[in-house]
């Protein structure tokens, strides 16, 4: 393709190879930011969610308040969440990450807790009978058995985070959302479509990756189904 005046950029086509060729580094940068923001928020949420779920399981009374608070957090709109955290973090990437951590937390705590609760009482008693202490019981019996449910929550949280990052464009840290936002203001069709498609493709790829990881680390679930 040549840069003649009536190439697809000048015509403002939806699909434009010239756009992909000339803005490759911008797209790459946006994708990297998108991945970093999502990965950081989901990992932080995971680190917080596991102890929260374990404690809520240990002390029954802690479960309703933990679930209640995380549910209320989930009702707060993403745009509003970023705005509410604005006084704390200012216009920064930390603002977007903090908002996404709060959303991921809801999904993760809920699913990990459900997984822990689904561990059969017989299994627990058997482990205790052969002399497992509480820590060993948790690490080698309960958590592995809670893995399938936890991974399901992780997949939902990751996919949601990928899609919510775009709203971070309001504070300038939205990964591909930045390109969508800028493309909207300039009616740049190729940029909006390319960024949107990339966004969905990355989310689906991450979901499949996690599904693969889940199959690898929980081989017994597949064996049981056959």
């Amino acid at each position, binding site marked *: 393709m040549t840069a003649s005046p009536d190439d697809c950029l000048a015509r403002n086509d939806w699909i434009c190879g010239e756009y992909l060729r000339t803005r490759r580094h911008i797209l790459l940068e946006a994708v990297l930011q998108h991945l970093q923001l999502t990965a950081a928020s989901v990992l932080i949420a995971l680190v917080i969610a596991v102890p929260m779920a374990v404690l809520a399981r240990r002390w029954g009374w802690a479960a309703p308040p933990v679930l209640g608070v995380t549910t209320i957090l989930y009702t707060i709109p993403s745009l*509003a969440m970023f705005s509410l955290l604005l006084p704390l973090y200012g216009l920064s990437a930390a603002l977007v990450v903090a908002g996404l951590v709060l959303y991921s937390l809801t999904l993760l705590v809920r699913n990990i807790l459900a997984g822990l609760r689904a561990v059969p009482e017989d299994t627990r008693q058997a482990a205790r009978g052969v002399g497992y202490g509480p820590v060993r019981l948790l690490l080698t019996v309960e958590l592995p058995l809670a893995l399938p449910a936890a991974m399901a929550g992780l997949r939902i949280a990751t996919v949601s985070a990928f899609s919510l990052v775009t709203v971070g464009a*309001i504070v300038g840290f939205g990964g591909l959302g930045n390109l969508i936002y800028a493309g909207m203001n300039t009616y740049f069709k190729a940029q909006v479509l390319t960024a949107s498609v990339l966004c969905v493709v990355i989310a689906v790829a991450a979901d499949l990756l996690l599904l693969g990881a889940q199959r690898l680390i929980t081989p017994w679930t597949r064996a049981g189904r056959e």
Partner: protein
Amino acid sequence: MNTLGATWHWLTDPAHWAGDDGIRHRWEQHLVLTVVCLLIACVIALPVALVLGHLGKGGALAVNISNVGRAVPTFAVLVLLLLTPVGAWGEGPTVVALVLFAVPPLLTNAYVGMREVDRDVVRSARGMGMTGRQMLFRVELPLALPLVLNGVRIAAVQLVATATIAALAGGGGLGRIITAGFNLASTPQVVAGAVLVAVFALVVEGVLEAVERLAPRRTRDSR
């Protein structure tokens, strides 16, 4: 603490409640947008889900559509629609994007609700000589109602929350208070807008939860 005080001050200033940019008008826009989109989404999703659930077909589609829907950012859909001919159509892109967003939870919950109706009950209804239509409206739908309403509640709360994003693309609603706050670099206004949307979402959640509890008693006793 300073921001909280300033936010309270912003919210209690009567000048911010009146006029076209005022809280009252923006809230009305938000409410109308949410209700219209919810109704359209219900009209599209519920009949499809009820018929599919009644026939027991298309289950994979009904369940997977909400997973796919989660991966598609509403913001991207909104901007894409804005750049198509639909964009010339006022609130068109917002309504279409929000309806697309609300359909999956409605569809999935209503379908699952229909499939979870006790098969023995359905079989006895058929044995009594009920027609398909009678079974659908007199047996399956009443028993599936709690889950159907649950889907409506989830969709409604998500709509209230997501309608905020319409403001990013120049639409109306409470989100405009937030975006205007960002443009004015006024943190109190941004936080005030966020508080208004969050409170609205929680109120809708509370009201619809009450409606679910008031739903016909027999459907709950059967659980």
